């Protein structure tokens, strides 16, 4: 490829054609424009006249210039100009393509893949074998080279990983010498230098890396009640960066909660402080750098960022001066760093909707019903025993186990036994893995009634097996009981370090920061959601649990992909970027060929632009030539010239949103001045004709038999008409009916909501039997899908439609099938003394059937039936029934549930009688 500044040419020898332009200039100058031959009898009078202006035959210079420009553009275009072309990889022999494949490569991944594709394509053309190595997902054994075409097929399957590559074992490199293309992610790393030395010893190395700095979020922590999010960059970013806190809004929809600009100020790390109310803060599920598509730019949050609202309620009056004996003192000390505490009487606490309510030695719960309700909705009630509870005689429902009256005392002055120590925690217990300090002794406790479910409820027990902590699920919440006091009166548990850990495990308090290895020891964490390399959170299925120790390091790897891990009620977020990590741009020695560092601009082929210019210039030339030779204004040419001018002026622009067309006023008045039935046009002229005739027939029937005297029916113009003016819309469904526009659907939905009725008619008598298997039925499903159609049921025998005017039980048209109406509410009850239920209050918005009513109603202008129905007298009876159905339907539309109110007749009569 021959380069001219930033533009390269794939076929540069074609540019030699530009040398021919001056010759062309001379040639074109010499040849005047071609004359028009005209038959003209008046030529006899012209003979002998001479032209006054001899210059007119020369092509004007500007036209020449235009033509030259067109030609030059065409020559340049065919020479294949490319802006910022990629330079082909030199060399021979096998090619090794190395991917870093980390999250840092994710933003430039498609370009990296494209670059690799280009290299493989060149290798394929040159017949060079190649190999691919993804450093983040290294091959299990040494690779061998394969045909480049095979590898190119694998490229689209490669994805960036949400972790960073570990040190690569050079032994895994393929045998022999090879050239290397290293698609770097641009981040400096420990293992780079040895690997680079290894591949450089085999052959030339070319490194491609994106020029844009790599951004990542390195931490998100609570510091003094403020959220501090740390961001790092491999180089100070040029463009402003925004950080977004994403979480669920109160409706449960994920959205951006907070956005804040991230100012690096020329440094490679910065922090952004969010001072948020706890309600908002607790909603945050992750932080993201806006627009950065990588796992590193996403910081998942977990319990560590949540500060729960904990309400502390003590039983007795606080005894003044005896602070250390206060039942709440140790709780306060344990929880204050990590939770928002509320200390109020229980009745004041509940409206604040705390996450946890701790009752310390409260025997009589003030408002057990409200408290129970709160627990059922997910609250955690943590209770501590105490003298009052032990003395309580009434059975307390808000306890996980039944307690024996009195409790027991071991190792006290009045007892023989020794104070008991704790037994190790069971595997299933949330406390599993916590070390049991030897010094914890329990001298008094309340005792649970033994029972079969006691073992299951026990979370912690004393060495003698008596339960120390019990738990019971209660609705979606839970009740946990510590069988000892919250102060040091009954046990030394509150004095030990185990106490806050237990509270943390119970998700009462939150972990201050990153979990320690020791803290996680013995726990098994199941990934709930994992990040992919692009930073998208995806649900995992069937992922094996991971031991807490493996998570403890906080470093993501193939074994521990970043994501959310859960154990019980606790959630830990493992992020792609470990806390405290710094990023630096990868530095490469001068011995490697570095590409892409300046590559902010994409490779842009200019051939199309050049050829389009040439074509445009030629079009202009056509117009100009026509104008010069006087042909432009000949009528036949004028049209063509207009087309040309249009082609030149054709600039694609978004179609202007059409103003919603309004209904013609006269038509609106006509529709509004009386009851008017309307039908939806199907596009099938015959069906529309029948539908119109059917509605005309129905109008006549209704006018003859009832006091409703409708005007002539109308054919709807769905786009224009105001549907509110029509009380009943008949919609015959044909197979090929085009679906209305979304705007029309909005109108239809408004119509249905505001009390209109649409009678859908598939006209195939088949809907009821087998469901929507007929083509018209399927079309109906498609047509009605965007409509707000309520749940349907086959019309029940007590539906109001059966008695609005005539007493009917079937609703035939030309066919006699079941029809479907809005389903009755499930709580409809049989009205007293009436053969029907007290049904829904309102008109069914849709009636769906396939009985081809319009054909049964349709009349010729002479008033004769347009179509036969059935045979003989039975058929006439069916037609009559169809007419009666029409009358009932119209009455139902117009009077609504009026006939339903018959259920109230006895009551009304009774009232009248009095």
């Amino acid at each position, binding site marked *: 490829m021959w380069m001219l500044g930033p533009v390269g040419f794939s076929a540069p020898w074609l540019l030699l054609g530009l040398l021919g332009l001056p010759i062309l200039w001379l040639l074109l100058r010499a040849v005047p424009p071609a*004359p028009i031959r005209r*038959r003209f009898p*008046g030529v*006899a009078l012209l003979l002998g006249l001479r*032209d006054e202006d001899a210059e007119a035959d020369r092509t004007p210079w500007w036209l020449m210039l235009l033509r030259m420009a067109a030609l030059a553009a065409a020559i340049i275009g065919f020479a294949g100009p490319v802006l910022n072309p990629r330079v082909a990889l030199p060399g021979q022999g096998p090619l090794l393509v190395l991917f870093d494949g980390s999250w840092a490569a994710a933003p430039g991944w498609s370009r990296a893949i494209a670059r690799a594709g280009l290299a493989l394509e060149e290798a394929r053309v040159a017949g060079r074998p190649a190999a691919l190595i993804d450093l983040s997902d290294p091959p299990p054994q040494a690779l061998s080279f394969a045909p480049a075409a095979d590898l190119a097929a694998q490229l689209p399957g490669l994805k960036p990983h949400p972790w960073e590559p570990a040190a690569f074992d050079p032994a895994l490199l393929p045998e022999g010498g090879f050239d290397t293309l290293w698609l770097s992610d641009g981040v400096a790393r420990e293992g780079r230098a040895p690997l680079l030395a290894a591949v450089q010893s085999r052959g030339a190395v070319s490194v491609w890396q994106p020029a844009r700095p790599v951004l990542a979020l390195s931490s998100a922590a609570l510091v003094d009640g403020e959220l501090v999010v740390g961001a790092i960059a491999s180089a100070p970013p040029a463009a402003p960066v925004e950080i977004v806190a994403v979480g669920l809004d109160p409706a449960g929809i994920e959205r951006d909660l907070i956005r804040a600009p991230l100012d690096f100020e020329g440094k490679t790390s910065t922090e952004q402080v969010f001072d948020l109310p706890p309600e908002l803060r607790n909603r945050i599920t992750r932080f993201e750098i806006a627009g950065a598509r990588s796992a590193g730019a996403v910081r998942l949050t977990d319990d560590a960022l949540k500060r729960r609202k904990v309400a502390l309620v003590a039983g007795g009056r606080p005894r003044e001066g005896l602070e250390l004996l206060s039942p709440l003192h140790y709780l306060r000390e344990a929880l204050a760093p990590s939770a928002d505490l509320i200390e109020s009487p229980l009745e004041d606490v509940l409206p604040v909707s705390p996450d946890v309510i701790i009752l310390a030695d409260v025997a009589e719960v003030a408002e057990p019903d409200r408290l129970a309700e709160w627990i059922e909705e997910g609250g955690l009630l943590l209770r501590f025993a105490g003298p009052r509870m032990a003395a309580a005689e009434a059975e307390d429902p808000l306890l996980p186990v039944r307690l024996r009256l009195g409790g027991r005392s071991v190792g006290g002055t009045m007892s023989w036994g020794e104070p008991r120590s704790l037994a190790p925690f069971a595997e299933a217990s949330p406390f599993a893995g916590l070390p049991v300090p030897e010094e914890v002794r329990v001298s008094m406790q309340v005792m649970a009634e033994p029972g079969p479910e006691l073992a299951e409820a026990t979370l912690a027990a004393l060495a003698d097996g008596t339960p120390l902590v019990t738990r019971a699920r209660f609705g979606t919440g839970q009740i946990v009981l510590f069988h000892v006091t919250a102060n040091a009166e009954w046990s030394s548990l509150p004095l030990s370090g185990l106490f806050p850990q237990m509270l943390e495990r119970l998700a009462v308090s939150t972990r201050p920061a990153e979990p320690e290895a020791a803290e996680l020891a013995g726990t098994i964490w199941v990934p709930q959601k994992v990040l992919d390399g692009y930073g998208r959170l995806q649900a995992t299925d069937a992922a094996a649990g991971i031991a807490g120790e493996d998570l403890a390091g906080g470093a993501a790897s193939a074994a521990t992909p970043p994501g959310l891990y859960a154990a019980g009620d606790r959630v830990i977020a493992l992020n792609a970027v470990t806390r405290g990590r710094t990023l630096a741009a990868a530095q490469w020695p001068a011995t490697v060929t570095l590409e892409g560092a300046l590559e902010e601009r994409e490779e842009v082929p200019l051939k199309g632009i050049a050829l389009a210019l040439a074509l445009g210039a030629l079009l202009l030339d056509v117009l100009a030539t026509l104008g010069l030779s006087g042909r432009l204004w000949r009528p036949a040419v004028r049209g063509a010239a207009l087309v040309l001018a249009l082609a030149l002026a054709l600039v694609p622009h978004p179609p202007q949103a059409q103003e919603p067309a309004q209904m013609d006023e006269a038509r609106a008045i006509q529709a509004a001045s009386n009851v008017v039935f309307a039908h939806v046009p199907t596009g099938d002229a015959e069906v529309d004709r029948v539908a119109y005739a059917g509605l005309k027939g129905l109008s006549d029937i209704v006018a003859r038999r009832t006091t409703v005297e409708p005007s002539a029916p109308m054919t709807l113009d769905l786009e224009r008409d105001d549907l509110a003016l029509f009380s009943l819309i008949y919609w015959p469904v044909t197979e090929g009916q085009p679906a209305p526009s979304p705007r029309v659907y909005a109108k239809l939905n408004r119509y249905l909501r505001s009390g209109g009725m649409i009678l859908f008619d598939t006209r195939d008598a088949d809907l009821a039997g087998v469901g929507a298997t007929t083509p018209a039925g399927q079309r109906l499903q498609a047509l009605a899908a965007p409509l707000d159609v309520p749940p349907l049921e086959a019309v029940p025998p007590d539906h109001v439609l059966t008695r609005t005017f005539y007493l009917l039980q079937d609703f035939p048209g030309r066919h006699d099938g079941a029809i479907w109406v809005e389903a009755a509410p499930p709580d409809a009850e049989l009205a007293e003394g009436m053969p029907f239920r007290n049904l829904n209050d309102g008109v069914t918005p849709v009636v769906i059937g396939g009985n081809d009513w319009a054909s049964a109603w349709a009349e010729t202008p002479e008033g004769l039936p347009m179509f036969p129905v059935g045979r003989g007298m039975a058929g006439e009876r069916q037609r009559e029934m169809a007419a009666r159905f029409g009358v009932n339907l119209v009455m139902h539309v117009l009077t609504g549930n009026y006939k339903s109110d018959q259920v109230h007749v006895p009551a009304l009569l009774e009232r009248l009688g009095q």
Partner: protein
Amino acid sequence: MTQAPPSAARALELRRGAEAEASALPALLVAAEHLAATVQMGGHGRRRAGAGEEFWQYRPVHSGDDARFIDWRRSARSDTQYLREREWQLAQSVHLWVDDAASMRFAGSATNAARASKGERARLLALALAVLMIRGGERVGLMGPLAPPRPGRAQLMTLAAHLSSLPEAGDYGAPEVGAVQSGARAVFLSDFFGAPEAIEAALARLSDRGVTGVMLQVLDPEEEEFPFQGRTIFESMSGALTHETRKAADLRARYLERLAERRERLSRMARAAGWQFSTHHTGSPAQGALLWLNAALGRLV
């Protein structure tokens, strides 16, 4: 084209609607009749007593009157004798010359297909004039030996046949005046783009024989406006004459000047010979031209 027998003329008229498309002869005749019907003929008498069919006046008998001309019925009502005089009805011979040169085939640019060519218009006018004349009892014929002037509707068929099948001629035509009877009338329908000397000679010869007449220049509007631009090669209809210009628009003024000059010359020639001259454009309706022709012929004495 075969000449329809005179007995078939009525049938042809009846079937004109059906055959209008099929045959040029009735089409031309029908069009001419149609055009002629727009001109309400007044009496074509000479407004003086003479040989004729129509009653003119009674006058007392002078000496020398032939006794058999005395109108006995009128004379019996009075004491003097009266002669019944008839209006002098002079059957004139009208010789039509319709230029059949190639230049008359011009009908403007190809886009104006709706416009009649000059030749079509000239033939239509000629035949319509013939219809009027025949209706007035004149004898109408074409110049040249083919159709000498004859009265009667049968002559119309002959004229129509000849007019419909005018032979191809050169670029520009000149009238063949040899067969014109002295004292007859002549009608020239042409664009007069040919050499004016030929016209002048013909007029001179006809004047010598006491023939007066009418010259109607039939032109296409394009010939009058010269709406051309750009580099153009103008060709005569047969292609024999060509003229190339680089800027047609520049020629316009000089062309129009020459056209006016030619018209002025024709007009002068006509005046000198006691003829009438006018110009008709195919872009305008034919009735005006026909009326003018009819009136101009009537003005001739």
